């Protein structure tokens, strides 16, 4: 297969190594069309066996895989368990052998258990407070005009909000110190991690900026969070408490994923706590939220200088050059503050001690090709 590009595009190989590059059977794609997902045929150590219920997928070892002789497991069962405490308890009880996406409190619960060992990796993603600055007609719907709220109209208020927060304290209180505080869109796990430093908490400066804005305090703000998510509730509470010292009155608004997603897409929010799961290429960690062409540009960002720098970085494959350009991009993003990045999560996976060979990387996907299990 040959791809002709009109200009260099460094993220291309990263795209192809991700979902867009999954190799699928053309025969089955043609036969099943939109229902391909119900009976997929791909290239991997394991093949689809059945989907017995909505929350379970069963795979079996594929005899067609080119490395089949090195695959030790006879199959895999993917079981959805949405409650973090249940996930950890099931792992301890041995009902499941691998638990992906454990939260820090679960990791603490499992830390002293000799039947389980924990694998950790810093995520390529990040958590942000999205500020609705110019999402006036819906995400990806120009023109991006200022929404007119105090925090949208006054960049110094956004700066004050950032300065009221202590990322280290947030990490310590909410995540037991297990995550990595950060202020950018490129994770510390990436070789392109920018060297521009993160501002620390400075309440005096934050108060000064609030006074400078001329907006009367307390400044009311609503922070949209995911309902039923205890971590987000804790995080939101800590943010509100810290921000109150600078004169902000933040109220938490828990919404389920679809309701929250609808409101955010339509631009009907002030602040929104969201996450980006992270991609290998740094361009794909910036453009989703900062590009004016992105369908999930929730803040309504269209910064010409940033667009230019990011485009230049994508058009070269020179690592040093790209890193320097992403440093410049970081400075611009920290200046505009349409998003306030808080931390890079630590991905935590628990594995029963009789299971070995599970590989785990910053993309959060466990690889079982070389895994094996002894006893039961």
């Amino acid at each position: 297969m040959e791809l002709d590009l009109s200009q260099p595009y460094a993220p291309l190989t990263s795209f192809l190594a991700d979902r867009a590059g999954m190799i699928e059977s053309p025969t089955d794609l043609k036969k099943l069309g939109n229902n391909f997902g119900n009976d997929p045929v791909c290239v991997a150590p394991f093949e689809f066996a059945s989907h017995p219920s909505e929350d379970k997928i069963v795979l079996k070892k594929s005899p067609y895989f080119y490395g089949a002789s090195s695959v030790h497991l006879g199959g895999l069962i993917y079981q959805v368990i949405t409650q973090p405490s249940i996930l950890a308890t099931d792992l301890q009880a041995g009902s499941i052998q691998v638990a992906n996406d454990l939260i820090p409190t679960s990791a603490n619960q499992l830390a002293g258990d000799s039947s389980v060992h924990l694998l950790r990796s810093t995520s390529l993603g990040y958590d942000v407070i999205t500020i609705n600055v110019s999402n006036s007609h819906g995400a990806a719907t120009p023109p991006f005009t200022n929404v007119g709220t105090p925090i949208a109209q006054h960049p110094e208020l956004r700066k004050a909000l950032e300065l009221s927060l202590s990322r280290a304290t947030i990490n310590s209180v909410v995540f037991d110190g297990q995550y990595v505080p950060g202020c950018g869109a490129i994770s510390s796990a990436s070789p392109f991690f920018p060297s521009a430093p993160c501002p620390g908490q400075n309440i005096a400066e934050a108060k000064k900026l609030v006074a400078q804005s001329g907006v009367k305090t307390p400044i009311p703000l609503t922070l949209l969070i995911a309902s039923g998510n205890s971590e987000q509730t804790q995080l939101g509470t800590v943010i509100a408490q810290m921000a109150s010292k600078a004169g902000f009155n933040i109220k938490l608004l828990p919404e389920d994923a679809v309701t929250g997603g609808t409101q955010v897409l339509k631009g009907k929010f002030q602040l929104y706590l969201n996450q980006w799961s992270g991609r290998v290429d740094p361009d794909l960690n910036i453009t989703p939220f900062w590009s004016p062409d992105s369908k999930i540009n929730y803040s309504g960002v269209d910064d010409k200088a940033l667009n230019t720098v990011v485009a230049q970085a994508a058009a070269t494959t020179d690592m040093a050059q790209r890193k320097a350009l992403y440093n410049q991009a970081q400075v611009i993003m920290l200046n505009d503050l349409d998003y306030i990045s808080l931390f890079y999560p630590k991905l935590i996976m628990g594995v029963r001690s009789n299971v070995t060979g599970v590989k785990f990387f910053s993309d959060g996907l466990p690889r079982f090709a070389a895994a094996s299990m002894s006893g039961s």
Partner: protein
Amino acid sequence: MRWYVLRRLGASVLTLLLSSIVVFIGIRALPGSPAIALSGENASPKILAVINAEFGLDKPLPVQYADWIGQVVRGNLGTSVANGLTVRSELAQRIPITFELAALALLVAFVVGIPAGVLAAARRNTASDYAVTTVSLLGLSVPSFWLGLLLITGFAVHLSWLPASGFVPFLQSPLGNLEHMIMPAFVVGIGLAAVIMRQLRSGLLESLGADYVRTARAKGMSEFRVVCVHALRNGVLTVVTVVGLQLGLLISGVVITEEIFVMPGLGQLTLESVFSRDYPTLEGVVLLTATGYIVVNVLVDIAYSILNPRIRVTGDAE
């Protein structure tokens, strides 16, 4: 009796129709849509329009309702927008699990609640009565999530006596099925046992104060026979009504238990459908639950009249 049943069935059909309208409107009143849930990060207006057109969500609401109800009366509950499976096949998979859980929970409730209620009434204002009443209050107050986790930690993690989660079909392994059902059935049943105990105690105390009980005692009947044969039969009437009401709640209320024990039942399906705005599945589940409620209440009324033939079900007690 025949006319009564026919009248109730007629009223039930009307109730069901009204329920379908309420369900249909209620679900669509939720913010967001299946299109938003499906498209996720790719939710551009163009993609949303394509998804809406594919599932007929761009048609006027009365047309959508007419299409849906027309299919329902032909036995077609539609296709899940989340996974492409027919709603009927999903329900067929999930119903046996939830019904088994509800049935076993009811068994636990009767086995625990009825003897406790009899004991509390027969030993009124004694230590036994106070102990049973206190325990029943605990049963009502304890959150099922906490109780479930406690049981899992004890019996699965520390003792390794029972599996922590999952479900094994009965036909695949009866013992495995029972092992997986014990804890969930207890979690669901203990709350209902507390309700049964309190209702039975109250009903039995009323019966034990009646003239016929005094007569039975005067005739020299044993206390066991007086309480368990004569008084219980009347005292249990309120329990029948309460169980009927609770049964509907039981089926819809096992959501939390199914989440804790990772059981792919109806409750879990309902929760998933709400979060993913899977309209056809949610409509199917709610309609099925409404049907269940109606059927159970009709059966309760019939059981009522069988237990006590003096009660005319036209509403006049004689």
